[in-house]
């Protein structure tokens, strides 16, 4: 893991993830006049999930632009402005809403660079909130990063904490390619969500970047590898504590980006632990967990001492009612049980 992280711990300032993201955006806006923000309720409200907190007051309505509820128009406009040399940050409030504007995202934002033979830069950051666990039901709780990672042409960033979020956001803004920046609602540090203190972090005041495609090993261990991202990193770390008490040393890998995917770190870990558990809040089939499993099978099959185990949403929409929702979502207990079973094999 990173040099950067060690340096980071020297500063004492604790920030929530939403504040860290807003700070990263603000610093890039100061540095580069071509950066601006568009989205629903990003202005006075500061973003429903706080990712533009305080920016309207600081930069005004010309650079922090509230939009009509017209996602096709304003996300498409981000592509167009980027092709003219601007660096738009554009927000799709919940990832679940992609349906109304998917053509602009995957046929244009994601493909114009390729179709122009690499001649066209499209430096757009598409921020979006995802994830469930708070009874927001089938149209407001999905993850869907696997769906976007499936489509060539989009970099997919999924931070798990405030420190990573700022560094990854600055990298995203400076990247000349379209980047989708996924923000799990539960890690943002919002006053109205269940608190998750472990998502807050010491965040340096100065701008810094975190490279894409470099996973973070949150905890080293020899017995089982747990690969995950987003809020599930915190659930996996909680599980790892309990597992350690039982004598099972889990290695917890936070992917941080899905595209590019740090296959090397995963494979290296599996070569050491010989057991792999993939934890994914997204749907089980045809997604991230299957992809990681395939890569490990391709590159380290002989090292596996047990079948790969996947914990993910069992291919049902997210139900509203609490007992059913908790049943389908991965959590620390389910991770403990799965890791325990793997370690016994």
């Amino acid at each position, binding site marked *: 893991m990173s040099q950067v992280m060690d340096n980071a711990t020297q500063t004492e300032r604790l920030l929530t993830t939403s504040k860290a993201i807003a700070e990263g955006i603000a610093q890039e806006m100061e540095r580069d006049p071509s950066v601006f923000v568009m989205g629903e*309720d990003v202005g006075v409200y500061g973003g429903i999930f706080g990712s533009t907190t305080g920016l309207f007051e600081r930069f005004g309505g010309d650079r922090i632009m509230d939009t*009509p*509820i017209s996602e096709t128009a304003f996300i498409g406009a981000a592509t167009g402005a980027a092709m003219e040399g601007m660096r738009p940050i554009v927000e799709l409030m919940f990832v679940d809403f992609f349906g109304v504007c998917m053509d602009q995202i995957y046929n244009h934002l994601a493909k114009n660079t390729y179709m122009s033979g690499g001649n066209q830069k499209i430096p757009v950051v598409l921020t979006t909130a995802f994830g469930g666990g708070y*009874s927001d039901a089938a*149209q407001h709780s999905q993850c869907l990063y696997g769906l976007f990672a499936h489509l060539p042409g989009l970099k997919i960033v999924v931070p798990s904490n405030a420190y990573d979020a700022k560094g990854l956001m600055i990298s995203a803004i400076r990247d000349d390619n379209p980047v989708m920046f996924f923000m799990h609602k539960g890690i943002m540090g919002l006053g109205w969500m269940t608190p998750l203190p472990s998502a807050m972090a010491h965040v340096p005041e100065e701008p810094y970047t975190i490279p894409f495609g470099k996973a973070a090993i949150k905890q080293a261990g020899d017995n089982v590898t747990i690969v995950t991202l987003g809020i599930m990193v915190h659930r996996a770390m909680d599980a790892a504590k309990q597992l350690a008490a039982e004598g099972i040393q889990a290695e917890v890998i936070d992917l941080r980006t899905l595209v590019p995917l740090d296959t090397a770190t995963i494979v290296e870990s599996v070569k050491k632990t010989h057991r792999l558990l993939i934890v994914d809040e997204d749907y089980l089939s045809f997604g991230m967990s299957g992809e990681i499993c395939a890569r490990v099978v391709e590159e380290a099959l002989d090292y596996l001492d047990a079948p790969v185990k996947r914990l993910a949403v069992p291919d*049902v*929409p997210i*139900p509203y009612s609490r007992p*059913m929702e908790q049943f389908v979502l991965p959590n620390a207990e389910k991770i403990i049980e799965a890791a325990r079973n793997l370690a016994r094999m």
Partner: protein
Amino acid sequence: MAKTNSLDAQTLISMYRTMAIIRNFEETMVNVYMEGKMPVFDIAGGTVPGEMHLAAGQEPVAVGVCAHLNDNDTVTAPHRAHHFAIAKGVDLKKMAAEIFGKDTGLGHGKGGHMHLFDQQKKFGCSGIIGAGMPVACGAALAAKKNGKDWVAVSFFGEGTANQGSFHESLNLAALWKLPVIFVCEDNSYAISVPKSKSTSIANNADRAASYGIPGFEIAENDVLAVYEAAREAVARARRGEGPSLMEVKTYRYLGHFQGDPELYRPKDEVAKLRESDPINKLGRQLIEQGAISEGDLVALDQEAAEKVKEAIEFARQSPYPQPADALKHVFV
């Protein structure tokens, strides 16, 4: 109001009754929603977790339009759906139970407050902005193909009139002369964004002109004004003369969702709006007309409160679904 006299007392009383039930339900939900979320608010906690969009103040749109509908007619509603569901006659107990996430709810707890579906009453809603309009076109298309005089009504907020599906649906409905009534409730805000900051013209009803259909602007949050305009729109649709668009000026008394800090609007705005409350107004009119007495009005309010109380009690007493029920119902 001269128009009052043209309506029979029974219709007026019935509209008052429905508005009173809606108001009582929404105000009850304000408190129910906070149960278990004090002293520290946590959206995931309490009796009713998740988002909660309430419609207190917006009763006239729902009631004035639905008064012209019967069980053969379809209604599609948006995320803020309780008032439309109640006005369309959806069973209050089953609706409350769904909002509580109970097995006895309309969708066995799968849908929740933004996803209420009642096949008998032909009611549905969605949390995706602009989703209901194409579906209403489909219901209307089916009615037309089947030679019925049934209509479909799609309700949505003023912020939603900027979504592509609004324009596509209006054109489609106009082109195919579908029996749809598009009803926009203008409560001035889409979450924090005021209409003036999101919409290039003042009145969405004017947009009807670009699709060659009638547009009705109802400038008052008044159930009789809505009722009169809707009478014409629904009658046209039933006669096979095609769609109409209505926009009704209305008020949202509460936050966009419960827990909304409402920093985007002046503190005294709602207090002022409440001074011209549409339910009080109809109550006074009924008394002035001699249709009912003061005592009758109190009784109507009590009756509404009782009905809501029963529904909430039913929801509370009902069992939760089994956790593994989550795996059922992906397909029929």
